[in-house]
């Protein structure tokens, strides 16, 4: 039941706050071209099916893949669209995995594409409308728009994540300096990644702490940018992968567990995520994906991690929730250099979402970079050999978590 899936290539477009030189289809095309040039034996015709996704609200285009069909080379090919908010990219990658592993006749090689051109639309409007229905309901029950706006101010993502940051900081007793340290590591790493957005090779902790609060405890300098960009990944079977590239990366575990929404429940009810940094969904995802991949000791068996974290507190928190470090010890690891490029367990050497955030694409860039690190083709390659890596994503109202576990050898345990 189910067959082994391999990743043979991943490609990126250049990311920037305004890719004013290209339209959305051209941006997508850039990523597909970069992906396919890395595997010379694969032509567009060799691709049997497509999976794609973005967050349609940000560009004001519903189902953009309909009119972008020819730009992706998907004419008269099977195509599926998966969108799940912030985790869209991760869900698309997982969709690519499932399309191959399902063993449907004639479907062997699948191209997964995720993209976002935020400069085309208004991201804050798009994000605010996540809870627009719920806010309208609360308003009709008597809470004024003024109060609701205050409560969810700063755009949905920051508004929600800041609550999480408070809880995490109070639990692990860290200071803002610890948060800034994460930012510095990420942005310096981004400077060595050709496609990254915020490249700051000389950033210091003081620089970050010198910026004003956007919403306590998050400062302006700690928050991710809004980028334009696209990413593509090529999934295929174990047999075909060996002909395509030297080191195929095997997908050994996937999970996308959903929890209930934080801060605001549906229909204006309360949220049972009393502590938004508890994240049982993430722990469940990790449990599921690791058990599929046969990983018992994540800290020892995982060599490289790409963690989806627009805000530094989240990077620390996910590191722990995904089983990489003991609870509340992640800040220490950043201080002692365990997570640096040449450290014991490098995290986010691409600069992470903190430096580059094309929302629909971000969650797929994580497994893409994690796969390239195993192949040895990543642009900020870690010095040590990477055997097993993970790429995660989060989205929704702190309630969706995707996780992909990859390795250089197929060791999936069949149930």
């Amino acid at each position, binding site marked *: 039941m189910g067959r082994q899936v391999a990743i043979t290539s991943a490609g990126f477009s250049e990311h920037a706050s305004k890719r004013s030189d290209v339209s959305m289809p051209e941006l997508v095309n850039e990523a597909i071209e970069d992906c396919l040039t890395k595997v010379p034996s694969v032509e567009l015709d060799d691709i049997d099916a497509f999976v794609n996704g973005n967050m349609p609200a940000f560009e004001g285009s519903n189902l953009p893949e309909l009119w972008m069909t020819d730009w992706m080379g998907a*004419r008269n090919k099977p195509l599926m669209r998966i*969108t799940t*908010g912030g985790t869209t990219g991760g869900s698309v990658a997982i969709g690519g995995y499932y399309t191959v592993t399902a063993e449907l006749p004639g479907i062997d090689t699948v191209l997964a594409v995720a993209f976002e051109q935020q400069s085309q639309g208004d991201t804050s409007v798009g994000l605010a*409308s*996540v*809870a627009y229905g719920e806010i309208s309901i609360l308003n009709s029950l008597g809470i004024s728009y003024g109060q609701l706006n205050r409560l969810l101010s700063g755009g949905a993502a920051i508004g929600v994540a800041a609550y999480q940051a408070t809880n995490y900081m109070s639990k692990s007793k860290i200071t803002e300096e610890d948060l800034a340290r994460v930012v510095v590591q990420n942005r310096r790493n981004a400077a060595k990644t050709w496609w990254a957005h915020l490249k700051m090779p000389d950033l210091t902790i003081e620089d970050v702490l010198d910026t004003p609060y956007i919403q306590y405890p998050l400062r302006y300098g700690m928050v991710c940018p809004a980028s334009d960009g696209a990413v593509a990944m090529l999934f295929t079977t174990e047999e075909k992968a060996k002909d395509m590239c030297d080191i195929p990366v095997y997908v050994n575990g996937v999970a996308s567990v959903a929890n209930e929404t934080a801060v605001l429940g549906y229909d204006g009810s309360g949220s049972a995520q009393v502590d938004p940094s508890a994240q049982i969904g993430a722990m469940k995802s990790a449990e*599921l994906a690791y058990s599929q991949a046969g990983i018992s000791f994540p800290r020892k068996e995982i060599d490289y991690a790409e963690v989806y974290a627009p805000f530094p507190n989240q990077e620390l928190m996910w590191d722990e929730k995904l089983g990489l470090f003991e609870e509340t010890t992640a800040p220490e690891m950043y201080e002692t250099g365990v997570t640096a490029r040449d450290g014991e367990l490098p995290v986010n050497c691409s600069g992470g979402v903190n430096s580059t955030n094309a929302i629909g694409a971000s969650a797929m860039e994580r497994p893409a970079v994690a796969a390239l690190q195993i192949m040895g083709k990543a642009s900020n390659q870690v010095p040590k050999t990477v055997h097993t890596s993970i790429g995660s994503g989060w989205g929704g109202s702190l309630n969706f978590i995707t996780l992909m576990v990859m390795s250089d050898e197929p060791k999936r345990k069949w149930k």
Partner: protein
Amino acid sequence: MDKVGIVGYNQVKLYSDANYGRYEMIFEAVRGALDNAGLKKKDITTVISATNDYYDGRTISNCFTVEVGGGYLADESKVEMDGAHAMLYGLMRILSGNHKLAVVWGGSMPSCYPYHSARLYETDPTWERPNAYVNDVTASGFQMRAYMDKYDIGAEYIANIAVKNRKNAAKNPLALEEAQNSNITVDEVLNSDAYSDPVTELMVAQPCDGVAAVLLAPERQALKITDKPVWISGVGWNQDTYYIGERDLSTCTSMELAAKQAYDMANINDAKNDIDVAELHEAYAHEEMIFTECLGLAEKGEARKLNTSIGGDLPINPSGGAMGGKPPCATGLIRVIEAVKQIRGEAGDYQVDGVNRAVATGQIGMCAQNNIVWVLEGGGE
């Protein structure tokens, strides 16, 4: 392909303006499907939903539906297409061996939003949207005219399809009330208001509020859950190019390719004889004829000669099809459910005799740009 069974289903009654909220509707569909199969929440391992951000007026339309859709702490994802496409992802998840029970649900409430405005955002933003010359409404006119011209068919044949489907819908208790016209005539259809000439209002499947859900399980579990599982024997899905000027609108290439893929998988060589009943997602009456031909159930241009009524040679849309109510994101899933009902013999007044193999289709886009074809089989005979 390993055997995967449909073990439960449920669909809420369709309303043009439902008097209850979105979450209750989703809950009713999903809970009903679980009850139909005699399962409980803890049995669910994966949930795939089909909703659309623009149709729901919410960015991340599945964000707040996690709990009511049964996705709490389950492996959850969303396919932003027709419900029939979401079932494809559900099938893949079951086939991977990672999951033992998949809930697939889809639906939306067009009474909450201007349907055609939302559809307009599906057009190319640089050319077609500002011109507003080609959109989902006008495209239907292009398509019908192309089909009529190519095979020299009068509008009365297409009106005939609308009459048949609306009469069938009258027998379906879950269909949209406005579409249950048991005494409708061809003249009434032809003389109703123009929608996009030559398409008239009564030839159009009306968008309405509704949610549907199905449950999928692998063979071993399916046999434990129900005595009457319906097996998935083939699936094909395909996307055509966007620009309708580039496509031959008198046919539907993506449907042909999807049908070929599904038939190859199900070992069907002679669709006309092998298939007992078809449930098609026809957004307009003429699409049913085009799809009938693309699915190989009739020769090109000959669909009008086929007797597709409930007692006919090859019954098509005995439930009334999409004409009996078209909730966006659920219609394709409802077609699958109706096909399952026919195979299990649970269709009531519109039951076709001796059904063992059925096809169901789903579509999205202008002039059915992306199509999916399901071939379903019963366990017996």
